[in-house]
């Protein structure tokens, strides 16, 4: 009998190897069809009308002129907002579907809305603007501990609202056919995508069919269909023709999800030997009108004995927040690691040493110490490190900075079918989605590995809600969910095949194994039958088995686990005359249990690092203080890192003993958490002063240099 437990390293043909992604060729050649690429016969194009005002009472929405435009086929307006308020620029008020995209654009300009302007709230820098009750949490006696501390440092830090800025916009194509609705969305949640649409269009969820084969990123902003998804479906139902509704880039940046800002004061105290004994923090920020939760401090060093945290929520007229890759963690990491290194600098202690001393306050001291050592070795810490501000007197000054982070990553509940056909072909069906991370490839690896077959022998079917239900891709839960469920399904299917093949080989089914395209006797490999011949014994009926990932049970079996750490070190150069920060190199050390595909794990690390470098150096949603409108809802001044901006990236995945036996753990969020902290710390190390807020743009660096007296 095949057992579901993962094979030993020596027995792995695919698992943990560097496997090239299956969807590379179709993506590189443009044959992969994203939601935007779906075109249906007789399809209409829909565009949204959104509030140009950040705060306004909506008196009336008049669509008559738009509806009179030839080529406009159907419209929608938000009845519930009439008499109510638009609370941010970009809030959807109406929609129009027309014969062409250009016509739809023209029609949108004919929508007449009567507004009464209201005062705006946009400032998120002043904690006095907070509303509602403060969130307050503490442990131990921080005041007494600060009184006993040999060194105390107080600092202010912050990072602004940013967007998800997915390469692929939000949206979908919807089509009614024979009473059923067919939807091609861009979603992180194929299995449950239709829930809120079904309610709104009054079509049973059982008659709604979702197909999402390729995704251009979601980062937490595509769990739900959004108003655009619901509106598109309503329009399609109203007019009986297929409708495409994809957001334009400005709408994408204004309304499709924000990462909350966070600002705060952090006080940290340590004994003379560097052991931190107290942490106090006052944190505030905005996630739009609601949705802000203060970053969880202390971060990683969670066992600091005395701490207090007060959080204040500032409502502002911005698009609402959505989960942004590792929600709350990049903010918490920036505050925590900045305070740590500021205190170390004040104590004239080496930062790496300071972290290592304080690993005692983490839940995994040994792991973090090991990761710090590996990262230090990879970047040449010994040769390059200097105390803060001791990087010479030149115009260009180099510095190193660190960050450590944590994440869960437990696989989500998921069901997967594996079918072995009588002709030897194999297929999986699972209602998951591949956000571009390699989910499709991972399924082929797990099933191929389990059945002793090459990657190409497995047909992977994902992206449809008709397939067995799998969880949303959020919180780094996908790889665990799909790996455990597909492993269980493939193992069950294989055991059924063993029962059929056993008589032919003259042994009991539990004496068999599947290796190298053969079903063979484990103890006597020469007693074998080719895979295809074994399947031929099935007769007319294929074997289909379902595997279900029940997280607690899979964890007990060793298939999946949760809880990882990571360490990153940045090497930067600061131009002391221009404030321009250049990233030379970043190293990232990460554990994530048993790695399914080393190549794509490293690729996901690279993606996380690049996204992290982007918010550390460039990215920011800028709002006008007078009008509350977004000033950079474009790719011109909403800056993201390009290829030449990211420096050299070095990734070290921890594998082997101590990691493999934990089973599979998610990796989506961890690499994006530390870059802000590590890069900010590196800049402080290089130029001698803390630049308190991200992104580290010339204006902020120059201001900090002036404040620190480094520049007149």
């Amino acid at each position, binding site marked *: 009998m095949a057992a579901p437990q993962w094979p030993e390293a020596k027995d792995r043909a695919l698992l943990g190897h560097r496997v090239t992604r299956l969807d590379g060729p179709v993506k590189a050649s443009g044959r992969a069809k994203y939601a935007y690429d779906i075109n249906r016969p007789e399809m209409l194009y829909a565009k949204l009308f959104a509030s140009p005002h950040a705060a306004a009472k909506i008196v009336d929405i008049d669509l008559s002129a738009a509806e009179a435009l030839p080529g406009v086929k159907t419209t929608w307006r938000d009845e519930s907002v009439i008499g109510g308020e638009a609370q941010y620029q970009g809030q959807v008020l109406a929609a129009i579907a027309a014969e062409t995209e250009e016509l739809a654009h*023209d029609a949108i*300009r004919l929508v007449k809305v009567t507004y009464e302007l209201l005062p705006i709230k946009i400032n998120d820098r002043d904690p006095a603007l907070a509303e509602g009750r403060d969130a307050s949490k503490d442990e131990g006696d921080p005041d007494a501990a600060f009184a006993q501390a040999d060194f105390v440092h107080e600092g202010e830090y912050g990072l602004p609202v940013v967007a998800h800025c997915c390469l692929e916009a939000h949206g979908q194509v919807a089509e009614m056919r024979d009473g059923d609705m067919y939807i091609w969305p861009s979603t992180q949640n194929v299995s449950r995508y239709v829930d809120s649409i079904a309610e709104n269009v009054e079509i049973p969820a059982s008659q709604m069919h979702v197909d999402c084969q390729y995704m251009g990123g979601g980062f937490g902003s595509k769990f739900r269909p959004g108003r655009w998804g619901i509106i598109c479906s309503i329009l399609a139902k109203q007019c009986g023709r297929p409708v495409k509704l994809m957001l334009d880039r400005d709408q994408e940046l204004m309304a499709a999800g924000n990462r909350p800002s966070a600002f705060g004061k952090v006080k940290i105290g340590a004994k003379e030997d560097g052991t931190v004994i107290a942490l106090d923090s006052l944190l505030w920020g905005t996630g739009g009108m609601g949705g802000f939760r203060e970053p969880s401090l202390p971060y990683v060093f969670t066992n600091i004995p005395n701490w207090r945290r007060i959080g204040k929520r500032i409502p502002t007229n911005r698009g609402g927040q959505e989960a942004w890759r590792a929600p709350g963690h990049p903010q918490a990491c920036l505050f925590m690691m900045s305070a740590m290194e500021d205190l170390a600098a004040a104590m004239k202690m080496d930062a790496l040493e300071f972290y290592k001393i304080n690993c005692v306050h983490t839940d995994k001291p040994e792991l973090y110490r090991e990761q710090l050592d590996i990262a230090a070795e990879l970047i040449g810490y010994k040769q390059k490190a200097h105390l803060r501000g001791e*990087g*010479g*007197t*030149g*115009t*260009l*000054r*180099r510095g190193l900075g660190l960050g450590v982070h944590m994440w869960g990553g437990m696989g989500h509940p998921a069901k997967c079918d594996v079918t072995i056909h009588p002709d030897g072909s194999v297929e999986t069906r699972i209602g998951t989605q591949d956000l571009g991370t390699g989910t499709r490839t991972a399924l082929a690896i797990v099933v191929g590995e389990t059945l002793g077959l090459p990657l190409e022998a497995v047909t992977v079917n994902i992206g449809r809600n008709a397939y067995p239900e799998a969880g949303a891709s959020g919180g780094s839960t996908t790889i665990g969910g799909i790996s455990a469920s597909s492993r269980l399904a493939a193992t069950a299917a294989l055991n059924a095949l063993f029962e059929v093949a056993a008589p032919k080989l003259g042994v009991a089914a539990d004496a068999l194994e599947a290796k190298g395209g053969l079903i063979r006797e484990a103890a006597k490999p020469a007693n074998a039958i080719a895979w295809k011949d074994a399947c031929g014994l099935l007769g007319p009926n294929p074997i289909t088995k379902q595997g279900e990932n029940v997280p607690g049970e899979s964890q007990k079996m060793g298939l999946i686990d949760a809880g990882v750490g990571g360490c990153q070190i940045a090497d930067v150069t600061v131009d002391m*005359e*221009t*404030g*321009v*920060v250049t990233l030379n190199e970043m190293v990232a050390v990460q554990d994530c249990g048993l790695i399914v595909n080393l190549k794509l794990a490293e690729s996901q690390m690279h993606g996380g690092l690049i996204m992290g470098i982007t918010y550390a*150096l*460039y990215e920011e949603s*800028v*709002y*006008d*203080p*007078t*009008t509350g*409108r*977004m*000033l*950079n*809802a*474009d790719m*011109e*001044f909403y*800056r993201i*890192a*390009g*290829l*030449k*901006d990211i420096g050299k990236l070095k990734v070290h995945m921890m594998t082997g003993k101590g990691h493999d036996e934990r089973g599979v753990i998610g990796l989506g969020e961890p690499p994006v958490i530390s870059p802000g902290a590590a890069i900010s710390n590196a800049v402080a190390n290089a130029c001698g002063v803390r630049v308190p807020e991200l992104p580290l*743009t*010339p*204006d902020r660096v*120059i*201001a900090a240099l002036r404040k620190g007296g480094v*520049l007149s």
Partner: protein
Amino acid sequence: MNAFEYARPQSLEDALALLGDSWGEAEILAGGADLVTALKQHLVEPKRVVSLRDIPGLSGVEKGANGFRIGAMTSLAALLEDAALCAAFPSMASAIQGVGSRQMITQGTLGGDLCQRPRCWYFRTGHGLLAVENGTPLVENGDNRYHAIFGNAGAAKFVSVSSLAPALIALEATFTAVGPGGKTREIAASDFFHTPQTGEERETVLAPNEILTHIALPDRGRKNATYEVRHRHGLDWPYATASVAFDYEGGRATGVRVVLGHVAPVPWVAGAAAAAIEGKAIDPASAVACGEAAVMGATPLSGNGYKVQLARTAVKRAVLAAAGIPLEVS
């Protein structure tokens, strides 16, 4: 964008006849890098778009006895590929490379670079060239981190973003424009730009029915360089730039010209900076003095004081680069 008539005249005469007497009637299409975006954003809504693509003689670089004559429709890529031009004018070559995008360099033209509209984010988001809403001037009261630190006393606070104008002014280029009836006028590069007093004016002295046709660039063997303070390496705008040119005989700089970009509604000619090193040897100390002089009298807004430091540094580094003195690196 709105529907418009698209004209592709075969001669300059025909093109001129297609242009209107006032702004807004027709727009001129060169490479389209700026115009197409402006059309899509309804920043301009012309009845007619007049392409210069088919008009003979507007594209190419001619080398004459005293310098170069460049057609306004010459692509930035073609300029970059002209070895003689780039050897004589490294300040132009580095400004073009600074554009950062191969696509933009290939598609963009010299005339388009000079005539492109400001990138002020209030202008580009539909608040008008001078960005006033309900009587409130938005730039002064708003986020002006990328706005002017010179020449900003009037209503215009945006910055001129031409990559090549500072270099061409420093090199004392002359622009040729042709108007109604084929009337030709020569305009010194330094006189070409204009600070609008109302939102209906444009940013150059060209009339609505005039076409910029050629740029004449004297080659007198002057030292020249451009330095741009940039953060990202790809397609992006610099924060501040400086172009300098001077004769450098006997170790003394003479005929010095210093022009800053991205700091004022027009390319900003820094006379005091030029005077600071006129007749002097170029060394790190004199370069610093030149930078200091360049930013004397700067009038930064609430959020762009840092640009004064960037402009100062850009001038210093351009002066050193022109003299062939390597930048200090630690």
